[in-house]
């Protein structure tokens, strides 16, 4: 089927109009919702930090956001370092995961809290994380033994890679609680 120039022109105009209007509408809604979304995310992160190291005060050490480690925060209690919290983000074919990993001064994972879990099998991944990383036993030496077979293997593998990155960073930079 060969289209006339007039028809092609009409199609182009309609497509431009629809795309332009859609874009404008999305921009408008984004302008309204963006500050609230940012505020929500700050609140969520603060309550997650308090969940990981209860009663601690936090100081951001690095927020460069390169690679998967987006932020490193130091947790102190009575002027003593109790651990570090890593904000990490990664994605696979099943969606994005953003989480906070708490690492104690001894190098053990204290808690993993999801900030965003866009995996299709999100609840399965969360079940796996609750059963595996919240026991306080996972460390640089034992993370290789974490089994990712949980009904959402790809999501669990992504979490494992993110937690490994946090532990590697800890080992390289703060081993023994030293900065």
């Amino acid at each position, binding site marked *: 089927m060969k*289209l006339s120039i007039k*028809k092609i022109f009409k*199609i182009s105009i309609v497509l431009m109009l*629809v795309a332009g209007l859609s874009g404008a509408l*999305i921009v408008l*809604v984004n302008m309204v*919702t963006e500050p609230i979304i940012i505020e929500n995310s700050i609140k*969520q992160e603060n309550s997650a930090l308090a969940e990981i190291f209860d009663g601690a005060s936090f100081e951001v050490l690095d927020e460069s956001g390169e690679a998967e480690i987006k932020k490193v925060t130091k947790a102190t209690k009575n002027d003593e370092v109790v651990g570090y919290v890593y904000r990490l983000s990664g994605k696979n074919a099943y969606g994005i995961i953003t989480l906070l990993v708490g690492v104690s001064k001894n190098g053990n994972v204290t808690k993993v809290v999801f900030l965003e879990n866009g*995996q*299709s099998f999100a609840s399965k991944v969360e079940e796996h994380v609750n059963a595996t990383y919240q026991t306080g036993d996972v460390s640089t030496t034992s993370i290789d033994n974490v089994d990712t077979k949980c009904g959402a293997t790809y999501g669990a593998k992504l979490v494992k890679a993110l937690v490994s990155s946090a532990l590697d960073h800890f080992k390289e930079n703060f081993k023994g609680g030293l900065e």
Partner: protein
Amino acid sequence: MNEKQVEKSPRILTLVKGIIKENPLFVTLLGTCPALATTTSIESALGMGLLFMFVLIGSNIVISLLRKITPSEVKIPVYIVVIATFVTIVKMFSQAYLPELYSKLGVFISLIVVNCIVLGRAEAFASKNGVFDSFLDAIGNGIGYTLAIVIIAFFRELLGTGGFTFGKTLTFIPYIKFTPLKDYAISMFTMPTGGFLVLGVVLAFLAYRTNKKQEIEAFKEKEARRLSKEEAK
């Protein structure tokens, strides 16, 4: 019946048919993926239904408005752009104002774009009818779909958790946890298997009712024919 009532009835029919007679989930079996994935609790099913209804109303209205200027060669891409726009808007609003619902439904909000019901109503109805009729069609189908997934969620939550919890996902509702049958809960019903089972049983029940109705109607028709034959004799 006066003239005004006669004029009104097709519109009421447009609104009502999507709820029961042409229910998108129970009759046409469309949108089953989110119906299985988001029905672990009444709250998340209700939330999904409301977001879905918003997208359906918005896209039906806009597609109906654009129906005369949309070239047939590009109508599907235009519908998809319109639907995707409303899904993006719904996603941003829910992330801002209903963050618990947003994180609970996760990827399934974005997946409304590929929900067959939305594209189906756009192609079958909104592209051929006026704005008000398309709005009514969207309301009817939206209520029908919401009702269907809430029915599935009712059984899944009751059997899977032994009761109901409100105020956890839709935080504007006061928090209520009512689980009197907790000790008898069968957790399988909160898993995908439970979703398939409940949907299957509900569909079987509806099919049984429809068949029974048809049998009665056929019997009545047969009787009427027999009586008229006897009268003729």
